[in-house]
């Protein structure tokens, strides 16, 4: 089991390796001789981005963690304009942030291949909504490739660059969690000499304002060009190596399976023991190549489309069939749910029903038996780590602001402050929204200064992470200050982008190519004109509480930067360096069993011993912040060992 960051640079064509879909895509980009990669992390796309960061210097690729998806998109796009192969990657909602540039730039085309990797998250394992990027592809008239396995993801990445260059059109490579976060056997291909020799590639931007300036007179020319191109691409895709027809040639029943659904369909058919069907495997859900449909529909009497999320393929197929006078039954979303992710169970259930068969396993009876389990299994939602500085910050905010305050928050690890016992998150919407919502609530509930005030002021304390602050918090902060808001904004600065796996950001200053220029959040807040700016260490709960009090009392926009390194990051570094940290324990003589540590603070390393009626510390996961010792009124938490 070699290191992934080594494997993706192995010069061993033909070698079989086990790679995560995201790693396979990174390898594909390297095999395709990528020159520039820019992205903002987001689950489930982040391992692609992090792998590119880890190998950038060794492969001669320029790689940056951009401040948000729009900026990343623009960085990569401009490289593609300059004739270089470029890629950006994001989670599905990242494309919402990049959408303005994305939709405006389609008609300008590209010179070097430009691939937009977008990772969707059906079932929302780590996301705030369930959206299907293929709908965006259709909206923008950009072709979308969708792999059915990690190996295919690698091959498709290379093809995506070629397709993009051939048509001078951007291309989306769309994955889902179950491709991005699935490991599979992948066969390595050739690496280009430039990658092997770490030779940085440079482009050439040819000025052409008629193309690169989208004033209305130019933009008007783009739309028909886009529509013409996509029809040419549709024709080309009939020959695409990721689209094919298989199964029984003279079958009466056909199944269309786009992307990963193909894998589930294959497993379902094998499980059912069915082989007298014809399958259209589609690697390009948009645009669906009509020529393949003609071949596929020949001789069929019924068709089922097994598709995850939106009926993107279904609508294209039905319109095509209608226009071509084909009147056989075509089913899709009436058999396969439109919400949540596709599974083998879903595929096998839909196909069994379509063919009038029994499912190989009685799923309903499993569900029935499982009801008993649901009734007794305690929930185990994710929680803030032991020693997480966010916990202390929330604890101090709640104490200082009181129970009637409103707490708009944002997206990051600190969203977990929603859960009991902290419950200091009242709203989260999308990245950066905490500040806009805080301001809007202030307008709605308190009115702006100078307005006639009739009621008692509501205290509003927003929380936002450091990475999120730079991502989309900046314009919102400018807005709040400009419009004379009266809110407290706490930037929970744990000096990493933690939720998505420990990436750097402007507040940390590191880049994959060495030191960048660090930007301090407090400097930004002061420069913008915030009325109160202070930095505090959340490991000192009392000091944090006092700063919060002052911030709340100050009229106007107060910005508190609660700065302390992410505990998970710190523990990782300390382990690597062989360092130790203090481990706490409960002095049972002093513990009165008041449960403040559990019912108000809630560190996962602290649990309740119901027999002794005392709190206990699990030494295996105590990461030594000492927050428990600060919140316990009886001094019952003591250092057991100065490091283990």
């Amino acid at each position, binding site marked *: 089991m070699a290191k992934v960051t080594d494997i993706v640079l192995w010069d061993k064509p033909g070698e079989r390796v086990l790679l995560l879909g995201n790693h396979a895509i990174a390898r594909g980009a390297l095999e395709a001789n990528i020159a520039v990669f820019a992205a903002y992390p987001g689950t489930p796309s982040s391992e692609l981005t992090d792998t590119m960061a880890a190998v950038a210097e060794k492969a001669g690729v320029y790689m940056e963690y951009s401040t948000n998806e729009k900026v990343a998109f623009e960085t990569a796009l401009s490289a593609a304009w300059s004739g270089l192969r470029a890629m950006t990657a994001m989670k599905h909602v990242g494309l919402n942030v990049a959408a303005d540039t994305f939709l405006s730039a389609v008609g300008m085309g590209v010179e070097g291949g430009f691939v937009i990797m977008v990772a969707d998250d059906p079932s929302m394992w780590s996301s705030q909504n369930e959206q299907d990027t293929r709908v965006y592809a259709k909206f923008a008239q950009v072709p979308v490739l969708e792999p059915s396995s990690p190996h295919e993801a690698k091959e498709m990445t290379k093809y995506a660059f070629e397709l993009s260059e051939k048509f001078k059109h951007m291309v989306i490579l769309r994955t889902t969690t179950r491709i991005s976060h699935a490991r*599979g056997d992948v066969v390595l291909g050739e690496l280009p000499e430039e990658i092997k020799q770490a030779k940085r590639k440079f482009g050439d931007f040819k000025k052409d304002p008629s193309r690169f300036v989208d004033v209305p007179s130019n933009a008007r020319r783009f739309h028909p060009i886009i529509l013409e191109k996509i029809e040419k691409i549709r024709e080309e895709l009939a020959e695409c190596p990721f689209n094919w027809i298989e199964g029984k040639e003279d079958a009466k029943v056909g199944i269309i399976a786009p992307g990963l659904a193909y894998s589930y369909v294959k497993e379902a058919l094998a499980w059912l023991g069915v082989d007298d069907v014809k399958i259209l495997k589609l690697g390009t859900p948009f645009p669906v190549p009509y020529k393949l449909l003609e071949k596929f529909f020949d001789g069929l009497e019924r068709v089922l489309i097994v598709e995850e999320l939106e009926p993107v393929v279904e609508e294209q197929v039905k319109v095509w069939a209608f226009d071509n006078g084909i009147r056989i039954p075509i089913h899709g979303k009436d058999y396969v749910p439109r919400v949540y992710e596709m599974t083998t169970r879903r595929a096998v259930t839909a196909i069994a029903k379509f063919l009038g068969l029994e499912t190989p396993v009685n799923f309903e009876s499993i569900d029935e038996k499982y009801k008993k389990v649901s009734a007794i299994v305690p929930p185990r939602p994710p929680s803030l780590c032991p020693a997480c500085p966010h916990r202390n910050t929330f604890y101090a905010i709640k104490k200082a602001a009181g129970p009637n305050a409103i707490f708009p928050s944002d997206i990051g690890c600190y969203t977990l402050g929603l859960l009991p016992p902290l419950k200091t998150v009242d709203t989260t919407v999308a990245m950066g929204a905490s500040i806009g919502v805080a301001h809007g609530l202030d307008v709605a509930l308190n009115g702006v200064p100078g307005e006639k005030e009739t009621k008692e002021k509501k205290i509003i304390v927003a929380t936002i992470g450091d990475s999120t602050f730079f991502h989309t918090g900046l314009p919102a902060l400018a807005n709040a200050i400009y419009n004379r808001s009266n809110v407290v904004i706490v930037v929970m600065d744990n000096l990493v982008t933690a*939720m998505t796996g420990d990436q750097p950001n402007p507040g940390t200053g590191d880049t994959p190519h060495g030191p960048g220029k660090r930007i301090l959040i407090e400097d930004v807040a002061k420069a913008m004109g915030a009325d109160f700016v202070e930095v505090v260490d959340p490991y000192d709960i009392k000091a944090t509480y006092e700063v919060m009090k002052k911030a709340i009392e100050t009229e106007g926009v107060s910005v508190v930067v609660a700065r302390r390194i992410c505990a998970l990051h710190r523990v990782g570094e300390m382990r690597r360096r062989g360092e130790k940290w203090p481990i706490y324990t409960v002095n049972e003589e002093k513990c009165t069993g008041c449960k403040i540590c559990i019912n108000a603070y809630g560190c996962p390393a602290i649990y309740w011993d119901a027999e002794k009626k005392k709190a206990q510390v699990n030494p295996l996961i105590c990461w030594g912040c000492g927050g428990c010792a600060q919140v316990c009124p009886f001094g019952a938490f003591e250092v057991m060992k100065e490091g283990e």
Partner: protein
Amino acid sequence: MVKEYNIVITGVGGQGILTAANLLGWAALHAGYKVRVGEVHGMSQRFGSVIAYVRFGEDVYGAMVPEGKADVILAFEPVEALRYINYLKEGGLVIANSNPIPPVQVSMGLATYPSMEEIKKIIEEDFKGKLITLDAEKLALEAGNVITTNVVLIGALTQTPGFPLSAEHVKEVIRLSVPKKAVDINMKAFELGVKAAKELLGL
């Protein structure tokens, strides 16, 4: 060559579940199988309940094991075995670490932790599986470091009746994967897991 073999690994984020799944995936790959390992990264890794899937065989497709198709469930924590019991096929085996990690909700008195008897009863009577439990942390400490808990459990897993990979092969993959200075304790941890499972299964 086995046609298809399905392992479900469950536990609490931070217990090394993804590492275990990855090791087993490589072991299957080196044995010449097609492989899929299904994971979820991000939010759930923060001390929440975690499930990973390892599938291999002549042909494997999706990365997730469907309900009712797991040959074996390897649980790093007892209640996490029960939480995902719907994945087990009838007659399948559940190997569980016996050390409970009480969720915060339990400590707060908002939920209760089921007894081992209750867990066993549902697994064996309702889901027609077989449960064996071992104190993997204790064995890991005996091997030299509690960090090897997952290796103890992988050792035990290789003793599942009908397990298609040989214990020696899996052990070798682990030997090549861990840092040099940690080889000995990992090998010992693996052997302790093998021994414990053999006894529990009466092999």
